[in-house]
């Protein structure tokens, strides 16, 4: 752990990403205690107020302006990050668990199981992720739970393919062969011997997937299929603000910058994790 942080300190990009991610996560967790205006309370007397940075700490200040219903944009972005990050994290964890386990099973059993699984991966690769997501959300109905399921569904195969490749190599190693020899069961070998050895690549993929999923979540919300109003979500704010683009540029600008900075910092952290733990993954996506 100490060596990990020492290495992180040496990389400017990695450290920057790590710090920025930490700030965003903290802001998301602490959002209700930051003294921000209520994100869903509209104020028709203060509609589309331009950003002002004088008197920042006086009540009623709107450093990033207000939207078409007079709601504070900064507060909506910070509260929106709670929902966005929670959905993205849940989807990454769900997709990661399913993908990693299927990858281990395919790589360990090989044969028929492996062939069937890899064909399913091929089928899903041929189906554009966005269309799959649109179709499934339209079928299941837009809700937070369904959004997590859809995002995980677009994600599992990236783990499955890479982990499978790693397990194919691992299963011929001495420690697996000797586990066999002393009579360890299949599940024991997969969970106690293979799983710990593929955790690092799984973690690296998870970080990079987190960035992709945040963008995809925003895109789905943008198309009206994400978190439902009045709850703030970054993609929804973009979609609503787009209508007022010629009169109030700030409504549509700031949520986008929030997405950009979040994805950038997660990507920086993920790139560093990958280079630190497993440079070979670089060209394997």
């Amino acid at each position: 752990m100490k060596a990990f942080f020492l290495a992180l300190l040496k990389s400017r990009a990695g450290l920057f990403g790590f710090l920025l991610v930490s700030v965003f996560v903290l802001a998301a967790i602490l959002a209700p205690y930051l003294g921000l205006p209520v994100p869903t309370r509209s104020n028709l007397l203060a509609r589309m107020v331009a950003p002002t940075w004088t008197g920042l700490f006086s009540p009623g200040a709107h450093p990033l302006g207000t939207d078409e219903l007079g709601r504070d944009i900064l507060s909506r972005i910070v509260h929106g990050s709670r929902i966005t990050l929670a959905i993205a994290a849940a989807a990454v964890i769900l997709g990661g668990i399913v993908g990693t386990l299927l990858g281990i099973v395919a790589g360990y059993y090989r044969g028929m199981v492996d062939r069937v699984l890899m064909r399913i991966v091929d089928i899903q690769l041929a189906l554009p992720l966005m269309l799959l997501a649109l179709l499934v959300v339209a079928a299941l109905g837009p809700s937070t739970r369904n959004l997590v399921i859809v995002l995980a569904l677009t994600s599992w195969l990236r783990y499955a393919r890479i982990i499978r490749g790693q397990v194919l190599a691992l299963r011929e190693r001495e420690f697996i062969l000797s586990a066999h020899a002393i009579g360890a069961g299949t599940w024991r070998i997969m969970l106690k011997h293979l799983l710990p050895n593929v955790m690092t690549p799984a973690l690296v993929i998870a970080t990079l997937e987190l960035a992709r999923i945040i963008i995809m979540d925003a895109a789905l919300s943008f198309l009206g299929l994400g978190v439902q109003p009045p709850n703030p979500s970054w993609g929804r704010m973009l979609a609503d603000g787009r209508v007022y683009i010629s009169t109030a540029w700030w409504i549509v600008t700031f949520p986008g910058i929030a997405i950009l900075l979040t994805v950038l910092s997660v990507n920086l952290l993920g790139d560093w994790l990958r280079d630190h733990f497993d440079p070979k993954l670089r060209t394997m996506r």
Partner: protein
Amino acid sequence: MTRYLVGKLAESLLAIWGVVTIVFFVSRVLGDPAVLLLPVGAGQQDLDALRASLGLDRPILEQYLISVLAMVRGDFGISFQHQRPAMDVVLERMPVTATLAGTALLFGTLIGAVAGAIAALKRGTISEFIVMVAALLGQATPVFWLGIMLILVFSVDLGWFPTGGSGTIAHLVLPGLTLSVFVSASIARLLRSSLLDIMREDYVRTARAKGLLPRTVFFWHIARNALIPVITMIGIIAGELLGGSVVIETVFAWPGVGRIIMQAIQAQDFPVIQAGVALVAAIFIVVNLLVDLLYGVLDPRIRRR
């Protein structure tokens, strides 16, 4: 080689069948198109008659078999909304989508390749730093937001280009630029790391040691090998873009394949959903087959397998 191709072809057909099957069953959960097609308050008899005429009253497995057998013959059914063959409805949108995809691929690949090569060859200089920062920003920017920002600056403020629609070169500039940024950022980063990996190989050192010109070493020994992962990525991006980028088409009111499929999903127009998704999947698979063949051209070791 022939055996390899036949195998690949069989895999591709299997994948298309899988896509069609998934889409068939997922789309049946969307709801009852008869309710959407008839005016509010239509009687039960009218609903039943319409369902029967669309074939929606039969058991679901029978509907599935009928539509798969029809698809094998190239018949994707009649669009519920447009009352025309579903595949025609989708194919009409193809040129518009292909124009945008082609523009983005052409400029995105050119810019990305030059930037990636500069970053790898000028390692540790300010040029590498600028390219990498730009590429990181480009990859982290949600494309639809970038599109909106470009509309804000170039359409609303400066009034240079239309905010949406298609038809002229002026309409193509902003959506093309938006997608190019995304394409070039991915390609620049991948090409850079791929080049840096290959430059460390023993055979590159050997080539330098035997006195080959640096240019020869770069084009014949380094670039050829470094291009393989890049071409894989171009193939994947091309497949995705040719399937129509739903969000970008929405932002720029670009009447492409992505939007027609999305509208079909909203209208529960099953034949158009199926025709659209089957077409998009087929394009993706064909593009990736071409990429597989290109590997053989670049790397003789693959050709012999």
